[in-house]
C-alpha cells in the first residue's frame, strides 16, 4: 500500500501513526480471503483502532449519498467500524490504523496467532515497524523504504498541509481543503475534531489517521510551519 508509504514527516512524527494492513495477492492467497479479511478487521477492534478501512468501500467515516438537511446540525462524527467490517465483500486490501504503538504491537501478535495466511504489512517509522515485529516474534520479510519527495518540490504546499494531505496517499484529500480546514480551525469556525472528519470522509481506503490529523491541526492553530 504505497498510499501509506510516503506520509510526510520525520520518524518522530509517526509516534502516533501505525497502519497495519492485510492484502491478498491475486493468484496466491486471494481465494476465500473475504472471511479472513473480515476476521482481520474484527480482531483489531479490542485494540481501539482510530480507523478501519477497505480499499473499495472506504474507511469508518464515509460521505452520505442522501444527506438529510437536518444533518447539518447533528452530523455523526463517530467512526462506524461495523459498516467497514460488514462491507468487505471482495478480496482487497484492508487496514487498521492505531495511534499507540503498544496497540499496534498487540494487534500484530494477535494477527500472527490467527495465522490467516494473508500478507501483513506495517507502515510507520522504520523503528516502529521493527519494534512491532520484534514484539510479535516475527522476523521482517521485506522492507519498502520511502525516499520522500523529489523533483519539482516547489509545487508542494507547506509541511503541515503536506502532513494532512499525504495521510491519504491516494491523493483524495486536496491541498485546498487541508488549507481551508487549517484556516477554519484558526478562525474558530470548526473544532479540530470536526475538521478532521471532513477530510477523513474523502479518504477512499480508510488509512487516514484522525488522531494524528487532529494533533497536526491543533499545532497549526498556533504555529504555521
Amino acid at each position: 500500500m504505497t498510499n501509506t508509504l510516503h506520509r510526510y514527516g520525520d520518524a518522530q512524527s509517526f509516534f502516533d501513526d501505525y497502519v497495519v494492513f492485510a492484502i491478498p495477492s491475486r493468484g496466491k492467497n486471494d481465494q476465500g480471503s473475504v472471511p479472513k479479511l473480515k476476521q482481520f478487521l474484527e480482531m483489531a477492534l479490542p485494540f481501539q483502532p482510530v480507523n478501519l478501512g477497505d480499499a473499495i468501500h472506504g474507511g469508518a467515516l464515509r460521505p452520505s449519498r442522501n444527506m438529510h438537511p437536518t444533518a447539518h446540525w447533528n452530523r455523526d462524527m463517530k467512526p462506524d467500524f461495523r459498516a467497514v467490517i460488514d462491507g468487505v465483500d471482495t478480496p482487497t486490501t484492508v487496514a487498521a490504523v492505531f495511534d499507540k504503538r503498544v496497540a499496534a504491537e498487540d494487534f500484530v501478535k494477535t494477527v500472527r496467532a490467527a495465522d490467516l495466511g494473508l500478507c501483513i504489512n506495517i507502515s510507520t517509522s522504520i523503528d516502529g515497524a521493527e519494534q512491532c515485529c520484534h514484539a510479535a516474534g516475527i522476523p521482517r520479510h521485506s522492507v519498502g523504504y520511502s525516499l520522500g519527495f523529489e523533483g519539482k518540490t516547489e509545487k508542494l504546499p507547506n509541511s503541515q498541509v503536506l502532513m494532512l494531505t499525504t495521510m491519504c496517499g491516494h491523493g483524495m484529500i486536496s491541498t485546498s481543503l487541508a488549507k481551508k480546514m487549517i484556516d477554519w480551525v484558526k478562525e474558530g469556525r470548526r473544532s479540530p475534531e470536526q475538521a478532521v472528519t471532513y477530510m477523513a470522509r474523502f479518504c477512499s481506503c480508510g488509512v487516514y489517521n484522525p488522531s494524528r490529523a487532529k494533533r497536526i491541526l491543533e499545532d497549526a492553530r498556533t504555529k504555521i510551519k
Partner: protein
Amino acid sequence: MRINPDKCVACGNCTYVCPMGAIYIDPAIKRATVDRNECVECYACFNGLSQEHLNPTLVRTLRKLFQLVRLRFDPEPDVCPTAAFDPEDLQWPRVVRRAFSDPRVPHESTGVQGRGTEEVKTNDVTGRVKEGEVGFTIEFGRPGVGVWFHEIQKMTWALAKAGVAFEKKNPVTSLMTDVASGTLREDILGEKILSAIVEIKVPVARTEEIIGLVREVEKQIDTVVAVGVGARCDESGEENVVGPILERLGYKLERAKTNAGLGRITNSAEERKEPANARL
C-alpha cells in the same frame, strides 16, 4: 466529470475538494465548472462530497438573500447541496485518467485497486524482490500535482536505455507498446492522471546508479516524484544491505512499510505448483 448547471448553486464547496484544483465558478454562467484538461477523473468530488438533494431554485434564492444583506452563512464544507455531479461514460483514452486516478477502480492489468501495484507488500508470497535485488517504485504526480503520460515516458525511456527490467504486473508497463524501449502507447501521452508508479527491479549493485539516473531525469519532468525502495530482509529479519547504501547517498530514512512475512500461498491451484508456507 461534469457538473449539471441546472442543479449547481455555485456554493463553491467543490472548488476546494478537487485535488487538481480543476473546478472553478465560471463568472459567465455563475455555476461550478470543470476544467476538462486539468480534471484527472479521480471522482474525489463525486465520491467524497456528501450529497443533499435540495431544490436548486430554493437554494439559489436563499443564497441571493443572504448575499444581499451581507450575511455570512456557514455551510458544511463537504456537501454538495443539490447532488449536481454527473459522472460521464468515459471513452478511450480519457478512461485511462480514471483508471490511474480513482483509487476505487481496479486496474484491469493487475486487478489491484489504488495505483494497481503489489510491490513488496506481497513479497512473502510472490517473491518479487529476492535477496541481492532491489525493487524501485518510482511514483509521479502525488501529492496533489498530477502528471501527464508524456512526462512519465521520459523516465521509462531513460530506464529502458539503462537496461532495467520493468515489472510485468504493473499498470504502466501494461500501457507500453515496446517494453524494451519503455515506449508508451501514443494515444495516452496527452492524458493527465493523479499519479502512476513505474516499477523496476535491479541487482543491489546497481542501486546507486539507478538513483542517480532517476534524480537526473526528475529534473526534466514537470511534477513531483516519490521513490520507494524495496529490499528483502535476511533470515533474522535484518536489512543491512540496501538501507546503508541509501543512507550513504544522503537519504534520511524516516518511514517504511514492512512486510511481516505472515503470508502463505493458500490458493488451491498455486499450491500444486509451489509448496505452502514457502518463505520466498
